[in-house]
């Protein structure tokens, strides 16, 4: 059993990591940190873990060293504390945005601050198994992409990679409230946040940069908060080049994802669930991708959906760890999601 720790264990990504790691047969969860709740029980913050987890939170300063360390701290914190944090684990899997963008300048443009550890940017491998499985096999520094970025990349990438997409793509993302973590301000209360269709990023959402980098496309992205706790859905609109029909699209997706354990192609002609949506994905590590085709207008709509805390974060991180250590990729990630839900 490898010894693992979670930094930022009282947050939403941290809680999800704890849940998954506790059920993972190859690792032992040795510590989860919290400043605010140090020495309090983990299950007093994450009540789903009652009778499942007997740990108390560790203060970050009391951490030892571990085989694998997951960083689920607020963004900018990983880079600020990089020198300390990276020493904690032989393998470090970072879930913040800090090491996702290899280009320092792009980082500064989107995050409005200079990067504080630019020399480390090149050390990280992207924690997206579908694109980086090979590099992940011996990666000691892994940077997991953003939740909306993951959904959009997985929907766009195969079609972009075969060269069927014109470069300009718009991404319309919808996200539940857990996407912004456990923080609370006046806009986050239930009375204000329930029933919303809150366009919190009409232009220039930060995940644009991640999608552009992964797909080589030019992306304009919009993000809307919806009345859900978990879940991300992206609608990507673009134009195709050449001749494209449904069969070709299916062939492409099949080729790219036919062997993927956690990507499903969902574009059905019948039934209630014809295209990807997060309703049935809570708790699961699946990313569903689908498409619709407007041949007359030469347009494509590519759709992705996932649980932001699982395939959009903690699950992707654990899948990356499984690859890194040569374990079966599904280990600890078997929960398929619920219907109805």
């Amino acid at each position, binding site marked *: 059993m490898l010894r693992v720790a979670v930094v930022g264990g009282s947050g939403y990504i941290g809680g999800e990591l704890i849940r998954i790691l506790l059920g993972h047969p190859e690792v032992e969860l040795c510590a989860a940190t919290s400043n605010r709740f140090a020495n309090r029980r983990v299950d007093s913050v994450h009540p789903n873990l009652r009778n499942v987890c007997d740990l108390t939170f560790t203060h970050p300063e009391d951490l030892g060293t571990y085989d694998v360390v997951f960083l689920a701290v607020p963004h900018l914190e990983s880079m600020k504390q990089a020198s300390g944090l990276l020493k904690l684990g032989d393998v470090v899997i970072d879930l913040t945005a800090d090491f996702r963008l290899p280009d320092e300048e792009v980082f500064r443009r989107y995050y409005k601050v200079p990067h504080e550890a630019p020399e480390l940017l090149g050390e990280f491998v992207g924690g997206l198994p579908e694109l980086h499985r090979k590099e992940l096999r011996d990666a000691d520094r892994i940077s997991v992409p953003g939740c909306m970025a993951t959904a959009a990349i997985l929907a766009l990438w195969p079609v972009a990679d075969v060269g069927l997409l014109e470069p300009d793509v718009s991404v319309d993302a919808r996200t539940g409230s857990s996407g912004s973590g456990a923080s609370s301000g006046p806009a986050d209360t239930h009375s204000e946040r329930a029933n919303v269709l809150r366009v919190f990023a009409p232009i220039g959402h930060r995940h644009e940069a991640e999608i552009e980098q992964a797909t080589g496309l030019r992306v304009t992205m919009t993000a809307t908060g919806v009345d859900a706790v978990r879940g991300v859905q992206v609608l990507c609109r673009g134009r195709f080049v050449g001749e494209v029909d449904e*069969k070709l699209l*299916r062939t492409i997706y*099949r080729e790219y994802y036919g062997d993927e354990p956690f990507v499903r192609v969902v574009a*059905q*002609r*019948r039934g209630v669930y014809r295209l990807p949506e997060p309703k049935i994905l809570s708790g699961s590590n699946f990313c569903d991708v689908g498409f619709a085709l407007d041949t007359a207008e030469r347009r494509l709509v590519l759709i992705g959906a996932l649980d932001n805390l699982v395939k959009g974060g903690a699950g992707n991180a654990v899948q990356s760890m499984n690859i890194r250590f040569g374990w079966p990729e599904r280990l600890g990630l078997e929960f398929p999601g619920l219907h109805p839900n």
Partner: protein
Amino acid sequence: MPTCPECSAQIGVDNEPQLNEIVQCPECGSELEVVKTSPVGLATAPDVEEDWGE
């Protein structure tokens, strides 16, 4: 293995499919009719338009 006439997915059918048996494509959800056996041939079954949109 026969393929779906709608989306080209490979369709697993029983060893001895019956003529006119209906099978469903796992990829696109189409209903397909076995229009010949040995080798198996499939055609899209007439689709009852479902009311789904809003």
